C-alpha cells in the first residue's frame, strides 16, 4: 500500500510540476506541429505524394518531439537533489522511476494523441488510416518515453549530454518507427494491420518490464 501511495505521489508531483512549467510541455508539441506543417509547404501542390508520405512524416516528427521532451524527465530532479532523496526511501527506485515515466507520458505522449489526428486530416490521410494512426500512437508513445528514460538516465550527469542522448536513443526508436508507420501505411491501402499492432504491443510490454531496472541503475551511476 505504501508503495502504491508513493507511486501515485510521484505521478501527482510530476503532473503538478508540468502544469507549473507549461512551456516545457508546449515546446515539444509546437515542434511536432511545426515539423509536420513544413512538409506540405515544401512539397507544394502534390496532394498524392503528401498523402503517401503522411504516416512517415507524422511518425518521424513524433519521434523527434519525444526526443526533445526527454530532458524534462530527470534533469531538474538531478540538479535540485530530488533524485538523491528519491533514492533514500524504502521503495525500490525502479518503481518510482516507472511512476516518473508514466507522468512523462501523460504530459508529452497524450497531447501527441490529441493533435496527431488533426494533422493527419491536414495531410490528407483517409479516415480508417487515422484510426490506425491513433492506435499506433497509443501503443508506441509510451515505448518512446520508456526507451528514452534509459538514455536520459545515462546522460543526465554529463554536461553536454544532449547530442549523446539522440545518438543513444534514436537507433532504439527505429523498431517503433518501422512497425508504427508500416501499420498506418497498410491501412491506407486497406490491408490488415493486426501483425504490426501486435508487435507494437509486444514492444510496449517488453519495455514496461525491462526499462525500470536499468534506468534506476543508470541513475545511481549518474549520481555517483
Amino acid at each position, binding site marked *: 500500500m505504501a508503495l502504491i501511495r508513493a507511486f501515485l*505521489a510521484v505521478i501527482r*508531483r510530476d503532473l*503538478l*510540476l508540468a502544469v507549473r512549467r507549461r512551456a516545457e510541455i508546449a515546446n515539444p508539441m509546437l515542434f511536432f506541429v511545426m515539423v509536420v506543417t513544413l512538409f506540405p509547404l515544401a512539397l507544394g501542390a502534390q496532394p498524392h505524394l503528401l498523402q503517401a508520405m503522411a504516416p512517415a512524416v507524422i511518425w518521424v516528427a513524433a519521434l523527434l518531439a519525444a526526443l526533445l521532451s526527454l530532458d524534462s524527465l530527470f534533469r531538474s530532479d538531478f540538479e535540485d537533489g530530488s533524485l538523491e532523496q528519491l533514492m533514500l526511501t*524504502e521503495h525500490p527506485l525502479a518503481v518510482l522511476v516507472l511512476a516518473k515515466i508514466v507522468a512523462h507520458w501523460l504530459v508529452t505522449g497524450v497531447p501527441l494523441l490529441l493533435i496527431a489526428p488533426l494533422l493527419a486530416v491536414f495531410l490528407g490521410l483517409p479516415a480508417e488510416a487515422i484510426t490506425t494512426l491513433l492506435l499506433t500512437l497509443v501503443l508506441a508513445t509510451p515505448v518512446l518515453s520508456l526507451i528514452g528514460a534509459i538514455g536520459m538516465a545515462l546522460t543526465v550527469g554529463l554536461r553536454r549530454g544532449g547530442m549523446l542522448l539522440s545518438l543513444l536513443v534514436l537507433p532504439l526508436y527505429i523498431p517503433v518507427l518501422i512497425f508504427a508507420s508500416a501499420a498506418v501505411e497498410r491501412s491506407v491501402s486497406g490491408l490488415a494491420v493486426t501483425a504490426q499492432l501486435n508487435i507494437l504491443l509486444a514492444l510496449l510490454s517488453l519495455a514496461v518490464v525491462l526499462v525500470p531496472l536499468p534506468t534506476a541503475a543508470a541513475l545511481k551511476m549518474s549520481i555517483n
Partner: protein
Amino acid sequence: MINPHRVPLLEARQLSCRRDERLLFTDLSFILHNGEILLLEGSNGSGKTSLLRILCGFRQADGGELLWQGRSAETADYRAALAYVGHADGSKKELTVLENLLFWQALHTAGDYSLEQALHKVQLSGFEDNLIHTLSAGQKRRLSLARLLINAYPLWVLDEPFTSLDRQGIELIEQLIADQVAGGGAVILTSHHDLTLTFPVLQRIHLDSWH
C-alpha cells in the same frame, strides 16, 4: 551509561575513498550508537562530503564496509532510515512549501510531528502556500529541517546544516539535534565552523588526519 554489548546503529569499517588518484581518507572506522552524534571536521576538500555520500550510498567506497545494525547497509531498511540534508535540498522550486512536504510525507513513514507542528517548529507557519523560489536561502534550509520532523528517521546525515542560517536558526538546529538524540536517534554532521555544541555524547573525526 553505554552498554558495550549493544549492536551499534551504524558501523564503518576501514572505509577509504580516492578521488582522481588522490587519497582522501583511508582506514576510516567509527561506531555510532543510538543517541550519539558524530561530527566530521576538516578543511575544504578533505573529503567530508565524499564521506557523507558514501554513508548515504550515493557513492561507492573504494574500500571497507558499512554496517547498519550489524548487517550490510545496502538494504532498503537502511535507505529508509536515513535522512540526508545536503547542499541541494531536493525541494521543487515550482511547488509550494506544503506541496513539497506532502510529497515527502507520502514517500516515508510518518514521524512525531504533523505538518502544522513541523512548520511551526521551524518557524515557517504562514508560508504554506508560498512557492519555494520565493523563499530565502535560510527559509529553504528550515524547510529541509521540517522534512526531518514529519518523517521518522533514526539517522540524520546533515551536510553543513548551519550555512545560511541566522543565530535563531542555528539554535533551532542544535535543539532539533538534541531532541533527535534524546529520542534515541543518531546524527552525523559536517561543519567547518568551530562548533560550540555541548552534547554529552559527541564523537569528532578530523578528516585531515586520515590521509
